């Protein structure tokens, strides 16, 4: 564990030494981000239990929804969009706190904050790591949903993955931001969804509508409009979180 840490630390330190031109500064910033992404993903990769349990939980939630909704195939298919996105939210929200908890336990977040360079790199790094993690979970989730709910996923693979990507970016952007606070509090398990879920309602609406329109293949749908709303949501909240993160991580 400590070996990994030193490597990530060295990477961050190395690139911050020769910060002469703004262009190099920008490149140094990206190297810092890459170092944090690499560190977080390496930890996930080595402790596979995390990914496995979240992916398994997602499959389990899908199954439970299938039981709750009932055996009628048509009803299941109509509900699929909503079920898929609620499953993404419920299983995803578990992984955000963990991204900080591991660091807090080892006291390494303080170190990370002390390294030279912009602290926003920590946020962006964790955002990309969480995004990668959740997108991989979603691949499994969608396959399971396709089987359980009998969905024609292959035909709409491309537009659907775009919707899933846009929806996940907004979700992870806010999740990573709020988890930076919630993970340091007593009631972190309750507080994170309490803060996060109301904020995600526009994203939930747009993602579910777009997904359902794609699944039903109806010409009446407005997939493009919902995707634009998702894009607007992503831009606003990635930008706002990047700017506000500095005040959250200050101590």
């Amino acid at each position, binding site marked *: 564990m400590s070996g990994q840490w030193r490597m990530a630390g060295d990477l961050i330190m190395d690139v911050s030494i020769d910060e002469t031109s703004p262009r190099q500064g920008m490149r140094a910033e990206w190297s810092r981000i890459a170092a944090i992404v690499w560190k977080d993903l390496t930890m996930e990769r080595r402790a596979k239990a995390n990914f496995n349990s979240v992916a398994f939980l997602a499959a389990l939630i899908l199954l439970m929804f299938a039981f709750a909704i009932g055996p009628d195939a048509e009803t299941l298919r109509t509900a699929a969009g909503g079920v898929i996105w609620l499953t993404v939210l419920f299983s995803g929200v578990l992984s955000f706190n963990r991204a900080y908890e591991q660091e807090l336990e080892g006291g390494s977040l303080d170190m990370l904050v002390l390294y030279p360079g912009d602290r926003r790199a920590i946020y962006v790094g964790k955002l990309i790591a969480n995004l990668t993690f959740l997108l991989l979970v979603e691949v499994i989730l969608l396959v399971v949903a396709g089987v359980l709910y009998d969905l024609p996923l292959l035909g709409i693979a491309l537009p659907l993955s775009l919707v899933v990507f846009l929806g996940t970016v907004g979700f992870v952007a806010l999740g990573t931001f709020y988890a930076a606070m919630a993970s340091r509090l007593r009631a972190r398990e309750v507080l994170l969804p309490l803060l996060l879920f109301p904020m995600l309602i526009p994203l939930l609406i747009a993602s579910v509508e777009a997904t359902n329109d794609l699944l039903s293949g109806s010409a009446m749908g407005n997939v493009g409009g919902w995707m634009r709303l998702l894009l607007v949501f992503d831009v606003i909240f990635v930008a706002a979180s990047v700017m506000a993160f500095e*005040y959250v991580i200050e101590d």
Partner: protein
Amino acid sequence: MDAATAKTVGDIIGLAGLVLLVPVGWAATRRRMLAPLGVFVFLFVVASQATGLLISPPERGMGDLQKIMYVHVPSAWAFMIAFFIVFVASILYLWRRQVHHDRLAAAAAEAGAVLTALALAQGMIWGKPTWGVWWTPDPRIAFTTVVLMIFAGYIALRAFTDDEDRRARWSAAVGIVGALNVPVVYMSVRWWRTLHQPQSTPSTVDPAYIIGLRLNAFAFLFLLLFLVALRYRAMMADRKADAILEDRALKEDVAHV
């Protein structure tokens, strides 16, 4: 009363209310004026409600049920203003780092949450006999519910964060991000479902209702200012009391040694 007269009276009330906003706003910033302001706001709300109820004719479709509009619509306007105060005070806090901006944001969030809950409850009471259901994912009901949840998250975060400086920074960040979401939530739920009647603003409402609506809009605005001032004073006093207690405990410790 004919439409033209009602419109003129409505305009006069609008102007008078704006003029009145100056002394009310001033009183809200003065500690000694808090009690007189409370009395004034109470009387103003009662008088405005009475006027709204008495002078408006029963609505054609809804009858007297419509009169809930005089509390429902003004509290909905007032909670939007409360959210705006949270937004501005949060930005000011992060910029200037002064405690009173933090407490102002917190006070506005609490008053706003109360008014949001009020607007939602009144919407439900109005909706049950009109549409036959307590809650329906109609755009504005859904919007109000989501705003209430965002306020609740903000207040919960404050309740769980003990360190004063950290609480101020975190809740300011959450207040800003939350306020940014308000227009996005509004747009999304409106696109999502539009089975509701258009907004009640004086321009879409029959002139007979203008007077009551205008009066009560100002009544609730003054009520909001009073509630915010009240909570703000209480929180600042709390902080002062904490400091005094801490100081005394410290002195006692020294005396014992």
